[in-house]
């Protein structure tokens, strides 16, 4: 097992070094995606199946597609570009500041590595095992995400919705995007794969309560399915009415979560305090709505702008 760790660690370090220093931008992006893949292997090695699922769906799938659509719009991404930035300043002031910075960072990193020896890592695993039965779900990570620390998940879905709002504020995108080259094979492939995508997405969503899965990997797989449909040119035409529904689907996950929490508060249990007998079903409802709206939000992030249906 030690040999495996060493090789994995070496490969990760080499990929990071390649990603940051290979002259060609495209090679850097590919090294970054390979780094994502190997990180998923590291999550599997460290027995974190939920994170491996999320990394697989979001890390290598979605981030890769995002990077490619960005690179596609930068024509000279293959050209050799200067790597290091030219030194900004000159004269004693700059070197004094640079020297001060260099020394302080070295000290901090040495202290950081020394402090690693002290960490006892007590962890809350045992404490959580006792209370898991009261949480209404069997999978400990889902229990933490949706019951014990549910406030973090609410704010995280808010971050995702805010990211969509910021991307939409930055500009509009012609919809549906004109397809540059016709690929009949791609349409066939997509027709075959889409049912499997939907099957896997909803199976991940359903078993989130008792096994690794849940709202985030299933949302990411849904987003991947819709991106494939978009790339194959199979996109629906958007009218003002669909735009209205699109905004509500995007906001559904956050709204359901917050309104459920508030209704519990008004019912007297307290904000986001699930009563014992309904905990399972409420968590399932929240997870399904969150999964679907996360899929829609990640798709909106991939499109990279507010769909402008006048252009269609």
């Amino acid at each position, binding site marked *: 097992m030690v040999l495996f760790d060493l*090789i994995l660690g070496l490969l990760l370090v080499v990929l990071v070094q390649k990603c940051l220093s*290979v002259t060609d931008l495209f090679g850097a992006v590919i090294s970054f995606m390979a780094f994502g893949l190997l990180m998923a292997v590291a999550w599997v*090695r460290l027995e974190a*199946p939920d994170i491996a*699922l999320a990394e697989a769906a979001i890390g290598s799938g979605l981030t890769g597609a995002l990077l490619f659509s960005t690179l596609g719009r930068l024509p000279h991404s293959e050209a050799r570009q200067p790597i290091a930035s030219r030194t900004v300043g000159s004269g004693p002031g700059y070197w004094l500041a640079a020297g001060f910075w260099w020394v302080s960072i070295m000290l901090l990193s040495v202290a950081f590595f020394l402090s690693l020896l002290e960490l006892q890592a007590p962890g809350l695993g045992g404490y959580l095992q006792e209370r898991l039965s009261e949480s209404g779900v069997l999978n400990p990570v889902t229990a933490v995400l949706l019951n014990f620390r549910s406030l973090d998940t609410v704010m995280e879905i808010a971050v995702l919705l805010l990211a969509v709002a910021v991307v939409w504020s930055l500009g509009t995108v*012609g919809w549906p995007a004109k397809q540059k080259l016709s690929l009949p094979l791609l349409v066939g492939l997509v027709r075959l794969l889409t049912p499997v995508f939907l099957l896997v997405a909803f199976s991940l969503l359903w078993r989130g309560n008792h096994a690794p899965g849940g709202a985030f990997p299933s949302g990411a*797989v849904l987003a991947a399915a819709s991106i494939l449909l978009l790339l194959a040119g199979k996109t629906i035409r958007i009218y003002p009415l669909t735009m209205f529904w699109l905004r509500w689907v995007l906001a559904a996950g956050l709204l359901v979560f917050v309104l459920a929490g508030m209704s519990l508060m008004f019912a007297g249990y307290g904000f986001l305090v699930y009563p014992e007998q309904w905990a399972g079903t409420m968590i399932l409802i929240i997870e399904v709505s969150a999964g679907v709206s996360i899929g829609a939000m990640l798709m909106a992030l991939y499109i990279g702008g507010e769909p402008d249906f006048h252009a269609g």
Partner: protein
Amino acid sequence: MTTLYLVLVGVLMGNIAIGLIRILRGPTVADRMLAAEFFGTVTVAIILLLAIAMDKSVYYDVALVFALLSALAVVAFVTRGWPDRKSGEQEDERG
């Protein structure tokens, strides 16, 4: 038994290291993409072997999601990621 699988995983990781050379040397962008697709498949294989070595059947689902997503990366590259100089770059969005 698990040591055999771990040795095999080590060999597969060696494949990734060799594949890395193609990323650096690959003259065209498509070669680099081939190497990336190769990494995807090798990762699925590594996760399968780890699933056997650590005998946890949950990792088969991770491999399944990886297999699904490897198609997305290639398609995204071919349709959007390949910078195309001849036909120029249409302005498909109004900033």
